[in-house]
């Protein structure tokens, strides 16, 4: 059985009480896995220590103003791009709504046209009219009546 993770962490930190320290050290002597793991962790701790810095540059005067300049630029860029996104989203919604409207209207027209009596075709209207005899009114007048009847339908 290996040592508890929290105990090993305290061991690495050097904060174990003497009794617990002795117990862990005894375990590490006997357990190759834990010992190698702890050795690897110590090596990495040494590498992490290289990230410490004694001297670091201080902010130059006007640092706060430059931060707020950057905030202003980033906010402006964000507002512009979000506006574009909003308009694009709106345009998509309008296009979708138009498509749906046309689909519904088109379906209505098709259904309505199929359901109407065939008598509304020009041939049917003309067939309903009496054919002008040669001796009756002039053919153009009869044709006009026929066309009018068709248009009324």
């Amino acid at each position, binding site marked *: 059985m290996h040592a508890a*993770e*929290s105990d*090993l*962490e*305290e061991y*690495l*930190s050097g*904060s174990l009480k003497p009794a617990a320290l002795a117990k862990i050290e005894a375990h590490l002597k006997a357990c190759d896995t834990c010992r190698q*793991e702890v050795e*690897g*962790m110590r*090596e*990495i*701790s*040494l*590498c*992490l*220590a*290289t*990230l*410490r*810095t004694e001297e*670091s*540059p*201080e*902010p*130059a005067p006007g*640092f*706060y103003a*430059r*931060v707020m300049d*950057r*905030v202003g630029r*980033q*906010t402006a860029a964000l507002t512009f791009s979000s506006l574009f996104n909003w308009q694009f989203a709106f345009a998509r919604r309008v296009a979708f709504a138009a498509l749906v409207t046309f689909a519904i209207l088109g379906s209505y027209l098709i259904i309505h046209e199929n359901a109407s009596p065939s008598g509304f075709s020009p041939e049917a209207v003309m067939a309903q009219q009496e054919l002008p005899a040669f001796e009756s009114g002039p053919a153009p007048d009869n044709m006009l009546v026929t066309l009018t009847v068709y248009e009324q339908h």
Partner: protein
Amino acid sequence: MGTLTGALPLPAFGTKVAAKSRVDYQNTPEGALVQRAQAGDESAFREIVERYQSKVFSIIHGIVRQRNDVEDIAQQVFAKVYSSLKSFDFRSSLITWIYKITVNECFDYLRKRKVRRLVYESDLSEDEVRRVENTEPATDRQAPVDSSLAQRDYVLKLLTRVSEEERMLLILKEVEGFSVEELAEKTGMNENTVKVKLFRARQKLVKAAQRLDRTPGLVPG
């Protein structure tokens, strides 16, 4: 575990402690300062910048070491603090939160700098460079002269293999020198959680180190 606490988990306990510490922090002078800044008080935000700018510079310099770029990254850090401040929920202290943003910005910078350098040095596009980076063994073929620089580069490479939270905990512990108790207070986690997270983060680093193709002598042991 032989204790009763170990046998009978109390799920609400941790939540109550975290909630209490959140309320405590909100009632501190710094908590009040943050709330003012969240409400849009620019003088409060200015105070936050002036309070922590030196610390942020120090953290960045420790990781990046390019003096010319330190201020640029620091500006980006505080710009991000400004835009995200409303989402700060007082679970951790402000400096811990700023620290996390700072470390993440540093690693973003290092990643971009590496890709930019490879794009400049080769004729490859950025996408091609990224593909090459992912397939090549991640070692430096040319050994740096300074061994501490080599160790630094090596550990920075390893730190990209852990999560943001783990990276922050490790740096706070090993670089900044905070104790587990202090980390628990700053992050709002309980001490045992901090210890376990730290230990598991170290395990990941060890595994990452084993997977890397380490050239003998690159990291003096």
